């Protein structure tokens, strides 16, 4: 079964290469892209089942043994993240097929989509910090091009901010890698973890801590945390809808994932301390949700909400108890699905109403009630209304805060939830409930064809399923959290006899 460990990277690579060859044959390309996405989901499901029974799947590329070769490691968290990546990629590819006019899509979209998925999945399964960096770069390079695919002026403006801030983060990441390698002589995560534990035991963790803080800054920029989030709302509303849905679902979460690995595996046992992360997480929650309140564009509001939701996950990491980490993992599962779906629904609504600016929209509830319902499922879930998935995610974070008696964190989390509800209802009232500003507003039959809604229906079904089956799913997340909090299990799986 360990032969499948590389598959989350290989399947997108094959799909991307073949889609590049098929760039002149639009129909074939779309078809192959969808088939590739489906295979990715299948592979991810297989891995998830397998990892649930055998805890860790490890494969050393080229048969070079860890810590010298490139190691791929899949634990429960990585497996579930790979599955979510595949789902988001499939939704985006599917949407681009049935919801956009043929001419609206560049032939480079599908190859870039799969290169991006390859980078994202690679970041989740790699067991080596340098390869994490490489996967970040694969992901970023694809995303740079995807941002400006249509070559509009506003896209270029957003892309400049996005590229500059992300390159800064890459530079910091690379500097930290250099420092760490000079100090530790290894970049294998399991190997570093051993060294970090020894260093803490002997009270000489200072240099490691410096490298760790640099990693934290680099990952915080990628995750869109306060005070580094400016690139996100500047760029996410400019590309075409499937691209921004993909970005919204996945990119910041790779940063969150890297922060989880940093705090549980690479620098375990509080080498870094959790206070900074806790304060930054709460600040991220609040600034994100307040930033959204001042916006009038659908995707702009949603972009600011990505930031505030990242705040919840970071708070989960910072509290660091088994319950908090389980809630953080649950939050990731819930958030990726919901956020991509909101961007897709928002894109359809903006397309039908003729504008993304909420002042120029309206009347969508009467024009297309089904779309309204499809908006409400992820929107209510995002705000944490039971019985949707977001309620259980927020409940987990809040109860973890209560458990540790961090009342100010609990208060901030609850207030952020209320403000999220406000923003979601702002979109609801402005785009769906009030009358459309132009009196003769009607949807053309091809605009409101049911076929366009399939990807959103699928994602909404997943959201409802996460809500209904939150018990077993939360149990899985608890197991994932326990696995994260036991770095020695990971070290043993990677380095085996060397311990």
């Amino acid at each position, binding site marked *: 079964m360990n032969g499948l460990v590389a598959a989350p990277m*290989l399947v997108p690579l094959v799909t991307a*290469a073949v889609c590049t060859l098929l760039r002149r044959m639009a129909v074939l390309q779309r078809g192959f892209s969808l088939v590739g996405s489906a295979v990715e989901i299948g592979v991810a499901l297989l891995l998830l089942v397998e990892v649930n029974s055998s805890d860790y799947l490890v494969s050393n*590329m*080229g*048969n070079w043994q860890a810590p010298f070769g490139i190691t791929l490691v899949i634990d429960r968290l990585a497996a579930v993240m790979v599955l979510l990546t595949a789902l988001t990629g499939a939704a985006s590819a599917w949407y681009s097929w049935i919801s956009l006019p043929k001419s609206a899509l560049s032939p480079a979209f599908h190859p870039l989509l799969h290169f991006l998925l390859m980078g994202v999945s690679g970041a989740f399964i790699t067991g080596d910090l340098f390869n994490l960096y490489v996967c970040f770069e694969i992901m970023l390079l694809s995303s740079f091009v995807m941002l400006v695919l249509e070559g509009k002026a506003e896209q270029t403006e957003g892309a400049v901010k996005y590229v500059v801030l992300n390159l800064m983060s890459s530079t910091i990441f690379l500097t930290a890698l250099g420092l760490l390698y000079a100090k530790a002589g290894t970049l294998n995560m399991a190997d570093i973890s051993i060294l970090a534990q020894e260093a803490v035991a002997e009270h000489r963790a200072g240099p490691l801590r410096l490298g760790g803080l640099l990693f934290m800054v680099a990952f915080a920029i990628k995750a869109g945390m306060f005070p580094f989030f400016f690139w996100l709302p500047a760029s996410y509303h400019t590309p075409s809808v499937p691209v921004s849905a993909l970005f919204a679902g996945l990119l910041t979460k790779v940063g969150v994932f890297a922060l989880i690995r940093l705090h549980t595996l690479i620098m375990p046992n509080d080498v870094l301390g959790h206070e900074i992360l806790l304060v930054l997480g709460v600040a991220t929650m609040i600034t994100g949700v307040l930033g959204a309140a001042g916006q009038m564009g659908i995707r702009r509001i949603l972009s600011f909400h990505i930031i505030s939701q990242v705040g919840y996950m970071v708070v989960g990491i910072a509290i660091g108890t088994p319950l908090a980490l389980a809630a953080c993992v649950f939050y990731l599962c819930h958030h990726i699905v919901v956020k991509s779906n909101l961007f897709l629904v928002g894109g359809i609504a903006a397309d039908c109403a003729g504008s993304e600016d909420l002042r120029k929209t309206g009347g969508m509830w009467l024009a297309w009630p089904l779309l309204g319902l499809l908006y409400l499922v992820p929107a209510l879930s995002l705000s944490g209304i039971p019985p949707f998935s977001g309620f259980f995610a927020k409940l987990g974070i809040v109860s973890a805060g209560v458990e540790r008696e961090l009342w100010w964190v609990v208060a901030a989390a609850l207030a952020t939830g209320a403000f999220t509800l406000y923003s979601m209802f702002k979109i609801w009232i402005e785009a769906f409930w009030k009358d459309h500003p132009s009196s003769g507003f009607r949807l053309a039959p091809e605009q409101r064809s049911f076929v366009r809604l399939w990807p959103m229906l699928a994602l909404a079904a997943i959201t409802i399923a996460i809500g209904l089956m939150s018990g077993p799913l939360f149990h899985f997340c608890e197991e994932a959290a326990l696995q994260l909090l036991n770095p020695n299990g990971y070290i043993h799986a990677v380095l085996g006899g060397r311990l």
Partner: protein
Amino acid sequence: MKLPSIILRVMQHWLVPLLVVVSLFLLLRGHDEPGGGFAGGLMAAAAVILVALAETPTEARRLLRLHPTTLIALGLLVALVAGLIGPLTGKAFLTAVWLKADVGLFYFKAGTPLLFDIGVYLVVVGAVSTFALEIEEAAPLAPDRTGATPAKTDSVEGGAPSKS
């Protein structure tokens, strides 16, 4: 503005075959000695760029036969196949599999790392040619004497009236 292109054009006929041969040499010796797919690919791409500068980008594209983007995709697939031969024999992805043969005076050795290098070679040739040709076609350095893109040549000369 005009480049001394007569020298370049004459030399090009000698240099391009030489560059291609050396690039293949670098590709083949790369596993144990300096060289490899990346260095070889860069040198082959240099040959493509030389043709684009001395003649025209169109001529360079004709010489490549395949579209540079196709080369990238093919290279990726070749490298992937090289990686997948290992798993077919039950080992991890990218594990090297070697074929060795003593045939009289010759000792023959080839394996998946060479195939992987060929993939890298193709990707590098494709990628560098894409960048160079796109840039050259958008803003030609050398004035085009065959008249393939007269409008652009004019605008370049119009933009820089001082003859230097």
